């Protein structure tokens, strides 16, 4: 049984691609077969974050147009055997995607026995974002703890409830999860950032993960390593927890959501 999960947000720059890469790695590490697809046609980034940009020969649009087979376009990850990347086209525009084309690729991946298909949505609410969410079974809505991101997420949640295949066919609705990124407990305590409770309250959804603001996210991106693979990073541990919750472990407590306690020396000498 294949599950299609869209990673979306509405707003740009909140961490969709970072999240797609880390969730894909995290799921694949448990032995699941995972394909992660970049829907951001014309602005492809996922291959960079996954560290496979030099191995892209064929892309998503090539598969849709029948220029190559899906097998030729899927890039096998070098770290995890069960993880595959389908890159976006950098030279086309978003009109290259069609609903039938996307369905065909998804069907082929399902027939191939993948456990999870992650769809990394572009920002905005136009065609790319629409097609990324259209066939989803579940949605991970990435949100930063600030008002414009929360507003855009609300809009996206509205679209998930109305503009998806599940919504249009009247079946069970798309399961929605919130994932907070760039969360800084210190700034929340100072009242500069919305708290987890604020975001939950405004969007009326439960949070599947809280990723703390961490310099390692940027250095991981630059190194082409999904941040979840960086050992001894808070962000990696938090993504690990989010993957476990995605797989159904609801008992895990949230970590890295409280202001760090200052140690003895920090208290004496000022931290």
């Amino acid at each position, binding site marked *: 049984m294949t599950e299609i999960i869209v990673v979306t947000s509405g707003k740009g720059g909140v961490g969709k691609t970072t999240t797609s890469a880390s969730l894909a790695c995290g799921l694949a590490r448990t032995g699941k077969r995972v394909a992660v697809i970049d829907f951001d046609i014309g602005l492809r980034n996922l291959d960079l974050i996954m560290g496979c940009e030099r191995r892209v020969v064929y892309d998503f649009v090539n598969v849709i147009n029948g220029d190559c087979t899906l097998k030729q376009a899927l890039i096998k990850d070098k770290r995890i055997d069960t993880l595959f990347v389908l890159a976006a086209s950098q030279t086309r525009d978003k009109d290259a995607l069609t609903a039938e084309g996307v369905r065909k690729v998804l069907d082929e991946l399902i027939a191939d026995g993948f456990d999870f298909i992650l769809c990394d949505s572009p920002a905005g609410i136009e065609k790319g974002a629409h097609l990324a969410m259209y066939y989803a079974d579940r949605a991970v809505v990435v949100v930063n703890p600030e008002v414009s991101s929360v*507003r*855009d997420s*609300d*809009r996206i*949640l*509205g*679209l998930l*409830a*109305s503009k998806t295949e599940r919504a249009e066919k009247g079946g069970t609705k798309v399961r929605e999860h919130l994932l907070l990124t760039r969360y800084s407990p210190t700034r929340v305590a100072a009242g500069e950032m919305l708290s987890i409770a604020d975001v939950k*309250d*405004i*969007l*009326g959804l439960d949070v599947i993960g809280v990723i703390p603001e961490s310099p390692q996210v940027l250095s991981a991106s630059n190194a082409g390593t999904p941040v979840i693979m960086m050992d001894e990073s808070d962000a990696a541990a938090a993504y690990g927890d989010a993957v476990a919750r995605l797989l159904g472990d609801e008992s895990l407590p949230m970590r890295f959501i409280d202001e760090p306690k200052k140690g003895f020396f920090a208290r004496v000498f000022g931290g």
Partner: protein
Amino acid sequence: MKKAAAATPASVIDLRFGQVGLLQVRLREVDAPAIKAELAARIASAPQFFQHTGVCLDLSALEHPPEVATLRGIVEAIRLAGMITVGVSDASPTADQLAPALDLPVLAGFRQLSRPPAQLVRAAKAAAQPAPEAVSEPEPEIAPPPPTSGLVHTQPVRSGQRVYARERDLIVTAAVGAGAEVMADGCVHVYGTLRGRAMAGVRGDTNARLFCQEFRAELVAIAGVFRVFETLPEELAGHPVQAWLEGEALRFSRFGV
């Protein structure tokens, strides 16, 4: 909301009679400069809300029929204010004569007949009942009797979504997000936080009310009388609130105080 009056499967257009929201400007005087000044002042409070809005001139409050030239001046004043006059309402002989001269259609609306206010209220109430159709529905087909219970909406109304309860109340049991719109011909009830826009009595029922569990609305309108909340009044923000019309004025009060 709309019913097809004539459409064949193969046709390239649909001809439909429908109802759309339209800003009505009811003229009390025909003094174009004064109208222009007042429009500018009103619009300054919510410029986005009025930009390129279609306007229907309501002549029912005028004692004497205005001159065509005067009305042209008023249409121009409205245009300068950034809005577009799309028709004349008040289906009296006055409008019937004036409208063709202005090249505008006569829009027969819910308040089609120029009736005194008391009758208007009764007509609005009657709209909730199936028997006397006070609405001038152009379509001859037999409408099913409107449902008597309210429209219950259990999902959150997200930013950009719009929920409309035609000829009945709307009951939302979840939150209404910022940038969302909830509308009803009757009352609007929100058993969650109301952050978006709420409009009750959208077809003119001045007895319609708004009720909400946690008030943080951007805009509240009842029978076309609206208020924009740029900043929320301290005494209302976050509290259970109801809103209703008293004459032409919107009133707000907290529950349980």
